[in-house]
């Protein structure tokens, strides 16, 4: 085997590599973490078009909210209530192991009343009175569909573009591709409603997959220690820490002089960023400077840290400080049984704050370059899971159509896209697949989804795998 390097190539190879990595360092390594192993293989040379969106807040409704009881109004169902689902509608589609063995599949018409709202005349059920006030700001997709039928694969698919573990999450891709816009906070922050219940979440959903670990989401938690290990030992304040860190820095500088290793300088810089976070995180996390009318807007829960409402308010503060991607999770939408009671409760806990966030971003002008997304990992079946009674039914997972909405920068307002059949079972018009949804999201951020790639195990990976089309009709 030949073993002779070509000097010329080695030199040039190194230069090309390093210039490539320098380019991407400029984008993504401004402040958040550093790496000493692999040059970044970022392939976005420049944004392909001017981005309309600078920040995203994704209000993830985990568990799969029923589209039929909220957004996807199907008046025909009343006639079918209690009757067996026509097989022409079900078409032998795969069902989950939870209802797939049922001996009967009776249609459950939603037990909530629907009404049209706004100038757009958007139909919405009584469950979301506050959201009904913002329908004219929304770009509603009724035809999203997914490949997965169970929570783990479906939520992993929606958050990473693949049903199987191991791929980077949306936020990690953005962090890798676009870098940070501020020096004091992570650019990808995760908020999970406290006391969630329902289907579990897992760190993989905001993980970095095969990207470098600095691209993963940083979870902000309610309570005294919002970021893990942010707080100094009790009693030791910021000034004390500053004075201690000055000595640590000098200690490391001695080491750097002795060894000449640039990695030491990088570590010194990480300590500085950590210190800045110790100040900036509590500041952004402390809602006490918000006026009463803002708390009133988000609802009483917003005064209780860690609730969905408080997290929506916190999300606004993070967006104000140019955090690029805020990912909220609210669990509990998995209403296999006792859906009417369950969904009423879910909506009560989220409706006001969701609407408030859109309004609040709007009144601050932030909606001009911020995108809000609301939705879960799949929809729910029109047939009941378990027994259908006068005031009770359940719905199983349904991947073939569900509703999500976006609001803010780059998307049409008071607009509804896609429709489903009379049973809300299959897409009738303009389907949007999860890959298309991701492609559109990246497009709004100025990224060609085919160009944001990372080479791993010999293959170039994308958020959209080898699929995805930008849905131009959604764009304003």
């Amino acid at each position, binding site marked *: 085997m030949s073993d002779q*390097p070509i000097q010329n190539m080695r030199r040039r190879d190194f230069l090309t590599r390093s210039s490539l990595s320098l380019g991407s360092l400029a984008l993504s390594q401004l402040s*958040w973490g550093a790496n000493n*192993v692999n040059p970044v293989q970022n392939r976005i040379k420049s944004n392909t078009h001017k981005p309309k969106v600078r920040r995203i807040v994704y209000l993830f409704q985990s568990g799969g909210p029923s589209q039929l009881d909220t957004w996807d109004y199907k008046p025909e169902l009343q006639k079918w209530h209690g009757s067996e689902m026509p097989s022409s509608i079900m078409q032998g589609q795969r069902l989950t192991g939870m209802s797939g063995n049922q001996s009967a599949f009776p249609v459950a018409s939603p037990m909530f009343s629907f009404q049209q709202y706004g100038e757009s005349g958007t139909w919405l059920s009584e469950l979301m009175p506050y959201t009904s006030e913002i329908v004219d700001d929304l770009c509603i997709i009724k035809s999203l569909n997914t490949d997965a039928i169970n929570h783990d694969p479906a939520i992993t698919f929606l958050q990473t573009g693949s049903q199987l573990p191991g791929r980077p999450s949306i936020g990690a891709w953005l962090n890798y591709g676009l870098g940070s816009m501020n020096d004091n906070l992570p650019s990808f922050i995760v908020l999970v409603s406290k006391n969630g219940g329902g289907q579990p979440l897992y*760190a993989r959903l905001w993980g970095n997959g095969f990207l470098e670990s600095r691209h993963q989401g940083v979870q902000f938690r309610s309570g005294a220690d919002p970021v*893990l290990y942010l707080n100094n030992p009790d009693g030791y304040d910021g000034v004390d820490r500053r004075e201690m860190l000055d000595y640590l820095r000098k200690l490391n500088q001695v080491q750097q002089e002795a060894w000449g290793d640039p990695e030491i300088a990088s570590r010194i810089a990480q300590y500085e960023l950590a210190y800045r976070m110790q100040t900036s995180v509590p500041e952004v996390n402390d809602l006490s400077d918000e006026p009463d009318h803002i708390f009133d807007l988000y609802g009483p829960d917003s005064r209780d840290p860690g609730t969905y409402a408080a997290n929506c308010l916190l999300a606004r503060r993070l967006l104000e400080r140019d955090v690029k991607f805020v990912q909220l999770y609210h669990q509990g939408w998995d209403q296999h049984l006792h859906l009417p009671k369950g969904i009423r409760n879910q909506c009560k806990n989220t409706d006001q704050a969701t609407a408030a966030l859109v309004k609040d971003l709007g009144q601050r002008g932030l909606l001009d370059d911020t995108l809000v997304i609301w939705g879960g990992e799949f929809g729910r079946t029109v047939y009941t899971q378990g027994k259908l009674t006068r005031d009770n039914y359940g719905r199983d997972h349904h991947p073939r159509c569900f509703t999500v909405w976006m609001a803010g920068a780059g998307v049409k307002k008071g607009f509804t896209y896609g429709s489903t059949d009379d049973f809300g079972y299959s897409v009738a018009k303009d389907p949007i697949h999860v890959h298309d949804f991701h492609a559109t999201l990246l497009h709004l951020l100025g990224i060609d989804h085919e160009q944001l790639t990372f080479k791993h195990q*010999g293959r170039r990976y994308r958020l959209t795998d080898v699929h995805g089309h930008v849905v131009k009709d959604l764009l304003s």
Partner: protein
Amino acid sequence: MFSPYKVFLILLLLNACGPSLPDEVADELAGIRQPVGFNDHIRSILSDRCYTCHGPDENSREADLRFDLGREHIIASSGAEVLKDLLVDRILSSDPEAMMPPPESNLELSDLEKALLIRWVDEGAKFQKHWAWTSPQVSDLPKFSTDWIRNPIDNFTFAKITSANLQPKEQADDVVLLRRLYFDLIGLPPTLEEIEQYLSTDPKIRWENTIDSLMASPHYGERMAVEWLDLSRYADTHGYTVDRYRDMSPWRDWVIEAFNNHLPYNQFVTEQLAGDMLPNATSQQILATGFNRNHPQNMEGGIVSEEFRIEYAADRANTFGTAFLGLTFGCARCHDHKYDPISQEEYFQVFSYFDNINESGQISFDNATPVPTLVLMDEEVAAIVEMLEREITDLEENMQPPSSERMIRLKQSLNTGLVAHFDFDRPILSDRLKSSRIAIAKTSTQSQEILLGDGYSGKAPVLDGDAWLDLGNSGLFDREQPFTIAMWAWIPKALKNGTIFHKGEGAILYNFRGYHVALRDNGLEVVMARTLPDNALVGYSASGMPRDQWVHLTMTYDGSSKASGLSLYVDGKIQDLVIEQDNLNKSILLSRDKNQPGLQLGARWRGLGIKDARLDEVRVYDRTLREIEVAALADKEDLGTQIAVIPSAHKKQEVELREKRRQLNHTVDSLQEVMVMKEMTQPRPTFLLDRGQYDAPLHQVTPDVPALFASSTTEQPNNRLELAEWLFDPNNPLTARVVVNRIWQTFFGIGLVETSEDFGSQGSRPSHPQLLDWLATELIQHNWDIQHIQRLIVTSATYLQTSHATAEERTADPQNRLYARGTARRLTAEMVRDNALAASGLLATKIGGPSVKPYQPAGLWKVNQSTYEEDHGENLYRRSMYTVWKRSVPHPTLHTFDAPERSECMPRRQETNTPMQSLVLLNDPTFVEAARVLGKTIVSAASPTKGIELAFRRACSRSPAAEEQQLLQDLYDQEIDRFQKDPSKMKGWLQIGESQIDDDSRRVQYAASGVVASAILNSDAAIVRR
């Protein structure tokens, strides 16, 4: 895209007016002064930019042109012209229709790459086989006359170093080197005593002696195991969404012990891959196969079991490919590999080796260990179990005859042992023998009304297929208890599948624990299970039962835990049962104290029931009815018929037998099980799955290895064991290279092949191909002795160099791939924490056992509906590798320092440097407590100066430089001053962690020393191995 004819046309056109050579490319061309080599320079370009459309994947191949098979193939299929002007024209073209790579691929060639391709074409476009597909070649050692060289490794590195106009470095400082060796071999720092002893030993022997003693240390196995655990995706939870705890620590401990016993690599791997198939396999060898089962397993309620069973087999195959062959094998699951010669067919051939265990895709919600399993016993328990089994066999073989002269009428006999009888004929559907026991129809949400219709006698419930009729606590039997369930059944013809009766908790969610009789494909299935599909008795009668009429159905069981002890009767006639599974070794009751479900009829939770069927006269006996008794229940025998009475001697033996079986069941039931491999006797047919999807089987495949390994002399392996043997064929081009590369990575951070997970054409070229091959050959020739290779490395001059370097030297070789200096690396996650614990003296050095729960911020597991309860005492200070590893919420102390999630095979870790790491080292209770305890060294020293020096050495092994000493001294004074002025600032420093300070009068000194020690533990000198 193009037919060969079109290619020809374009070729003609382009030849006529080919694009001219751009200046930039011409410049690059002029700079290439040596011949280009295909493997050195061209393959990576073709692979990365061209193979997607012109590579091994047939389905995506364009223009019938492929660059992966060589010159002759291209000439034969497309003509020699392709390798002359056409390639050059296409890569230089700017016409979007003609240029290569095409614009829509988003791929480009750099000017240098274009120049290299042009030069390669000029030089005759010669191909070479990919280096990794040919067996390692032994080449002569490059000869140099320098006394720097200590062993052959150095000959190879020296050649590279000098050809890059660099010089190797001198040996590192003694203490630096000793610390390096300790972390590399045992993952812990040397103690001060060990340092002293080393320095006072004869320099001629001390290095080798230390290597010997470290390799003999029990911590050696721990250190080496950590990397193996990454590779083996070992964790303490099942993964996926529910992610509950599982204990595979006995397997982890096997790995530690295997390293400590210096098991040769071939044995080490063979036992893990196929220990179960070795002749007279020991339980340790079977335990080793847990390697294959460490992948995540899903217990989510609604999943399709087969979907995930396929995932598990795929994971095992992918892990095999990556861990042992350095192949990105999984890429060929959905289509032919895009870059390497592995077809989808070949993928499923390898997959089939791992497809052959009797497992379930959906694992049980009651935390039963997913089958197949090995029940672990220590010697004492094994002896008890063996004794009980012997006694049981004796009793079984020496039973008194079950008949006597004395006769009774059947009617009377049938009252004996009758423990429940539901006739559904009274207004309240109660048990005739126990009126408080009432049949209730249930679904998952609520109780239902029971619809009654005409029964076999009187009334009978009409079933809706969804609600099951719960007969209370009747039929609650464990596996040692003989019993009989009998009933009349009217089942509609339309039903082909559905549960007739069962004792258990729903369908697959609890892996069918209990027993049932069900329609299956029109036949009748009888199951008694601990955990389906493997730990169970399964019998099947294809003849089924008559429909649309009343039929008598009886199941009897004799308490033997053997399939032969199960019988099914239809209308009083015993049925021929095909035994599908005969392996029951634990209790069939659900592991709960209350609400043990009993007999249920006609449906099961989330399962298929028997819609519109009727069941009547349900009788339960706590004994095995005789055939004639069953016939009588089925109205095939007159109740007046006389039968022999069972003599009391026989009955007494039965009671004794049952008691022994109960003892055995009880003894075994509490024993730990671990997941292992167990080959099915009837091999499962494996199919090529279209797009890799579980529900799209195309055609059956048989086990085989990819054709690219044709050079191996071993015959085609037929099963997992032969596959393991095949791996260690000396001609296998990859096995030895892949492992020596990982060993190199252990000591130098980066492997000779940087992409230790990918030796294929998209992987990186080895920096020292000859060295890699030399080491691989050395390993094979030394009987796969891993320690031999490790010893060669740590005794080489290459390893011993100092890692000091000038800025120029770093610029010349930023990643240190030439080894013109020693390699500095941040300690791994485990080492960072273990170092702090060791320095403070807190470290508990116990080896093995279930994983532990050190400090972790409260509430982290909440997203997962679980609670992390911190341990106390010693378990807070165990080595980090024993920290409980929950895949969905990895422990932040370690995860922040790049310990992987362990959901998939991970041959190398990232090594990052982030602000979150700074926060961990500054504020994680583990490190604050370690700092306070290390600070005690300062408090109790004769002077702070001495104490600081000592604390520094304990954390960093070396003495502080004068400047460092002064800085720490100043910090100490500053903190003393701070805490004296405001004692409230000490609170956290004094209180965090379980350990207490022992002298309350010196609180200020303790707190200040803690801050100083924290600064030391945060410093580069502590966390970077230089």
